[in-house]
């Protein structure tokens, strides 16, 4: 018995976690997938009715807004955070004297809860008392900056806050990438008399392709899961102008009592995430095992 235990202890130790993951990740995904095919409303029903929840979802103007917002938010957030992150990384890579302190400042928002970030930016962007009134106070009485409460522009305030929160992290990723480029290649290029900006564009940045991919995956993943920031900053409003799939799902699940819609929207979110993450993880794991 003790011999058996000694030999199988590794499996015994791993088993509870594995079973937990099987049930609470894969089993639950299965449950949600199943329920997304039923007419569940306030309570789940288990009789499969086909794809009617998905049809309802795609017919819903609110979901339409959420998806459109995800496009706008995702594209701008990823693009700007990447460009800003790369720029900051390159600036910091110039043998800056107080690099440590500056890095700390650029990155601290990442330690904050999205709710804290949302609260701060909600105040800053407050039309009556925030930036708008500050600039008006500087002698521009006609200055208007009411994006937070403007249905057409509110989504951009979420982009702004999200970039503030995450761009420092992208910088940290890129900085690590810049530092990992083989120093001898750079020295060789310097000896060849290649100007610094050319060394960046022709040698260093192309060799960081995997980091770009990582940064993209992380940011895309953040964008799709974005929930807290919207809740704290706009609450999804005005109206549902800043709804994202995550807030739509939550509203359906917990305030509208429409479990079928919640499940189908969650499944769509998961499919989007998996479409991005699975190929990446697969290639990473394969590279590891070789």
């Amino acid at each position: 018995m003790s011999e058996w235990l000694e030999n199988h202890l590794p499996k015994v130790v791993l088993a509870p976690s594995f079973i937990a993951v099987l049930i609470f990740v894969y089993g639950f995904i299965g449950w949600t997938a199943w329920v997304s095919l039923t007419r569940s409303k306030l309570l789940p029903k288990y009789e499969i009715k086909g794809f009617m929840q998905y049809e309802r979802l795609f017919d819903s103007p609110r979901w339409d807004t959420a998806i459109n917002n995800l496009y706008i938010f995702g594209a701008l957030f990823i693009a700007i955070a990447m460009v800003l992150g790369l720029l900051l990384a390159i600036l910091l890579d110039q043998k800056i004297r107080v690099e440590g302190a500056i890095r700390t400042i650029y990155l601290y928002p990442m330690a904050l809860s999205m709710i804290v970030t949302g609260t701060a930016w909600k105040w800053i962007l407050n039309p009556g008392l925030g930036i708008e009134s500050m600039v008006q106070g500087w002698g521009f009485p006609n200055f208007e900056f009411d994006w937070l409460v403007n249905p057409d522009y509110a989504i951009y305030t979420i982009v702004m806050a999200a970039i503030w929160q995450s761009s420092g992290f992208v910088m940290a990723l890129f900085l690590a990438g810049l530092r990992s480029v083989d120093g001898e290649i750079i020295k060789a290029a310097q000896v060849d008399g290649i100007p610094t900006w050319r060394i960046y564009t022709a040698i260093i940045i192309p060799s960081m392709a995997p980091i770009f991919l990582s940064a993209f995956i992380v940011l895309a993943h953040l964008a799709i899961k974005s929930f807290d920031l919207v809740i704290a900053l706009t609450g999804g409003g005005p109206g549902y102008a800043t709804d994202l799939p995550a807030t739509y799902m939550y509203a359906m699940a917990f305030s509208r009592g429409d479990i079928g819609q919640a499940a189908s929207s969650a499944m769509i979110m998961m499919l989007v995430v998996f479409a991005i993450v699975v190929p990446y993880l697969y290639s990473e794991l394969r590279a590891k095992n070789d």
Partner: protein
Amino acid sequence: MTDLSMPQTQTRSQSATGKIALRWLLYILLGLFALYYLMPLFVMLTTSLKSLEEIRTGSLISLPREVSFDAWKTAWSGACTGIQCEGLRPYFWNSVLIAVPAVAISTLLGALNGYVVAQWRFKGANIIFSLMLFGCFIPFQVVLLPMARLLGMMGIAGTIPGLIFVHVIYGLGFTTLFFRNYYVTIPAELTKAARVDGAGFLRIFWSIFLPLSLPIVVVTVIWQFTQIWNDFLFGVSFSQAGTQPVTVALNNIVNSTTGVKEYNVDMAAAIIAGLPTLLVYVVAGKYFIRGLTAGSVKG
């Protein structure tokens, strides 16, 4: 010789001036970006120290004329989160009660799992690890509904143990990943030597691997603590009045519609809610960043 070297010196000094100018530009740019990142924190802090009257009349970025800690007091023990007006304090402690055990349990399990996956490979261990890893990346929306039902069935819906349970389950993937990636760098010969020496699975973990693990324990604890403290989705979905974590309470204070909008209290509350993770970041920033990058770039 001399007339040849003359123009050379000139160009050199010219380019040197150019370099100094560039250098200045560089530092100015970096400084401006630093201001950009610091500005919200600065605004939060000054606003929290102003009176409501001053907020209404003054500018966003002006320093408080009269420093007042009333807003902080209210935020801590008097602000209303809906109908209750006890401030953030009880919810702050809720977050502590959730985070501490959840971090400890998920870190310990992650260490054991990582140790198995990295050092005691058996058939299928890699598949198990991959499945756990994929689990890290699911949008949690997809498990919210069944989890809510399960917590109900287990009788821990809306309780702090329920939230601890949820955080442990969905933290396992990352903690396992962290420890696994750390332990694979430790040569397998070490385990072999200990086995020949007569030590078993747990003895080797306890006497050899755990003493080596301080850096990765710090990384994992910080990562998990930040994740759990800052969590909102699970908090808002699986808590009820009285068991909410601090993030949920903060959101309720800010969006509370009763009474006058007290921006200074909102800001003080936001800082209080953000302080623990911010503190961790300032004290152990190196490990925080290591966790972030390890959590995003495998390996």
